[in-house]
C-alpha cells in the first residue's frame, strides 16, 4: 500500500506529465491503487480526471490568449498548450497565473516560425489581463493639476496608476490584436515594426494604445520616479524646446482624460 504522499505524487504525474496523452502516460503503480468497479476499469477512471485536467487548463489558456488561439487554430493551439503545461504545471492556487510563462514559451518555439509575431501578441494579451485586475486607485483630476502652484511644478513627481503598463514589441501588435478580432480581415502578411503600447484600465474597462517616442520618453522618466523638470528635459532631448512645451501640455491632458495618472500624495 502506497503512503498518501506517494499516491498523490503518482496521481498528479498521471495527469500532468503529458497532458492529453491518455492512459499510456499513467503511472502503472498508481493504476494498481485504483479500483476497477462496474463498467469502468481503473485506467478509464483515471482518464476521466486526466481529460478534465487538460480540458480545464486548456480552456483557461484559450481564454487568456484568445487571439493567439484564434490565429493558431484549434489543433496547433492544443499541441502548444499541452507542451506548455507539461513544462509549466500550475504552481499557484489560482488559475489566474497559469499563463504567465506562455508568451516566453512561444518565443522559444521553432514550429510557429510562420507566425513570428505570436509571442508579441501573447505579451499584449497577458498585459491586458494583468491590468484587468490590478489594484484599484483614484485617478488624478484636472482640477487638482490646475491647483498646483507654478513654483511646485519642477519638483512635482507624477505617478501612473497601478493598472498601467508599457509594453514593447517588434511587431505592430495593436493591429494584429484588432485583426484577430476581425473575422473578415484581409489576409496580408504583417511586417515587423518596433511598437510601444501603453495598456491601462479606466474604471473596469481595459484599453491599449500605441505611443510615439516623445510619449515613451516621458513615461520612462515618470515610471523611474523622476520629477517633472526631468520629464521635460527628456522631451527636449527628442523635440525642440517649443515642441516639447506643447507636447507635455497635450500629453498631460490626454493622460488625465484616460485616467492613467494617479492622485498625488497629500
Amino acid at each position, binding site marked *: 500500500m502506497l503512503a498518501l504522499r506517494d499516491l498523490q505524487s503518482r496521481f498528479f504525474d498521471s495527469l500532468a506529465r503529458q497532458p492529453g496523452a491518455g492512459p499510456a502516460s499513467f503511472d502503472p503503480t498508481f493504476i494498481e491503487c*485504483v479500483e476497477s468497479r462496474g463498467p469502468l476499469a481503473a485506467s478509464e477512471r483515471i482518464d476521466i480526471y486526466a481529460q478534465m485536467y487538460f480540458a480545464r487548463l486548456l480552456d483557461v489558456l484559450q481564454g487568456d490568449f484568445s487571439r493567439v488561439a484564434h490565429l493558431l487554430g484549434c489543433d496547433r493551439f492544443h499541441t502548444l498548450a499541452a507542451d506548455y503545461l507539461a513544462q509549466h504545471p500550475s504552481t*499557484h492556487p489560482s488559475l489566474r497565473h497559469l499563463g504567465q510563462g506562455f508568451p516566453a514559451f512561444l518565443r522559444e518555439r521553432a514550429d510557429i516560425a510562420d507566425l513570428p509575431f505570436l509571442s508579441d501578441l501573447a505579451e499584449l494579451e497577458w498585459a491586458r489581463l494583468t491590468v484587468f*485586475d490590478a489594484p484599484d486607485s483614484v485617478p488624478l483630476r484636472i482640477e487638482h493639476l490646475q491647483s498646483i502652484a507654478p513654483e511646485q511644478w519642477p519638483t512635482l513627481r507624477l505617478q501612473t496608476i497601478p493598472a498601467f503598463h508599457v509594453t514593447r514589441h517588434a511587431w505592430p501588435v495593436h493591429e494584429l490584436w484588432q485583426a484577430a478580432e476581425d473575422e473578415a480581415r484581409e489576409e496580408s502578411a504583417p511586417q515587423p515594426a518596433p511598437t510601444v503600447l501603453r495598456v491601462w484600465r479606466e474604471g473596469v474597462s481595459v484599453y491599449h494604445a500605441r505611443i510615439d517616442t516623445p510619449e515613451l520618453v516621458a513615461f520612462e522618466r515618470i515610471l523611474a520616479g523622476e520629477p517633472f523638470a526631468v520629464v521635460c528635459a527628456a522631451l527636449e532631448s527628442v523635440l525642440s524646446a517649443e515642441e516639447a512645451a506643447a507636447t507635455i501640455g497635450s500629453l498631460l491632458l490626454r493622460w488625465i482624460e484616460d485616467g492613467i495618472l494617479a492622485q498625488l500624495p497629500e
Partner: protein
Amino acid sequence: MAIAVPYLGHGIGLRTQHFPRLWEGTARVDWFEAITENFMIPGGRPLAALEKARAAAPLVLHGVSLSLGSTDPVNTAYLEELHALIQRFEPAWVSDHLCWGSVGGHYAHDLLPLPYSEEAITVAVENIRTVQDTLGRQILIENVSSYLTYTHSTMPEWEFIAEIAQQADCGILLDVNNIYVSAFNHQFDPVAYIHHIPPARVGQIHLAGHSDKGTYLFDTHDGPVIDPVWDLYRLAVRHCGRVSTLVEWDDQIPEFEVVRAEAERARELEAEELERSYARSA
C-alpha cells in the same frame, strides 16, 4: 459539538454572467456564494462586483484550492489572502472541499478524491485545524463528486467525512448532488450516506445538475437539479432540519431568474418537509 452558522435561506452561486444584474440592482436572492479564488486578485471588475453582491445580500466564500487532504503543508500565502478577503467582505462562513488538489507545490485545479483511510483522516484533520486556527473560525468541508475509489480505502465515504468533521471540529457542507453522482459511480446507497451524516455538523447544503455519460455520472453543474436529487434534498432536510441551501450552476449558465427559480424550488420543498415533520411531532 456543532457548527455555529446562521440560517440564510436559499441562495445561488455568484457568477460573472450575472454581474450586470448586480450593477442594475436586480440580482435579488437570499444569499450569494462566491468562489474564493476568483476574488484573490488586487482589484478591478470582479472585486467591484463582489462589493455589489455583498451590499445586496449575505455572502459566503467557497474555496476550491485549499487542498485540505494534501500531504503538502497548507499554503500560508493562500491563507493570508483568504484572511484578507474575510476581513474585507465579512462572509457568513467559509468553506472548501474534502479532497486534495495539489502536491509538491503543483496544483491540479481539480477536486481529487482521497482514500478513505486513517492516514488521510490524520492529514485532513491537521490541515483543517491549521486553517481554523489561522482564520480564527470554523470552516465547512464539502463532500466531492468522484469517479474513482482506491484499494487503500478502509471505510465508506460517509464515515470518513463524519470522522474528520468530528476530530477537526468543523462543519459539513453537504452536496446532495455529489452524493447522488458518487453513489452511482461507486454503487453505494445515497440514502445510507445521508443517514450517517451528523445533522448538527451540517451548516450548508449544495444542489446542482450533472450529466449522464452512460457508464458514469459527471458533475458538470450545467443544468437543472434532477428529481432523484430533489428527493435526496427532501431526505437531507428531514435528517438535518433547516439548513442554508445553495444552487450551483457553473456551465451553460442561464438567466439569473432560471437559477433563482431552482433556489425557490428548494425553498418550497424545504417548507413542505419541515411542515410534515412539525405535523408528525405535534
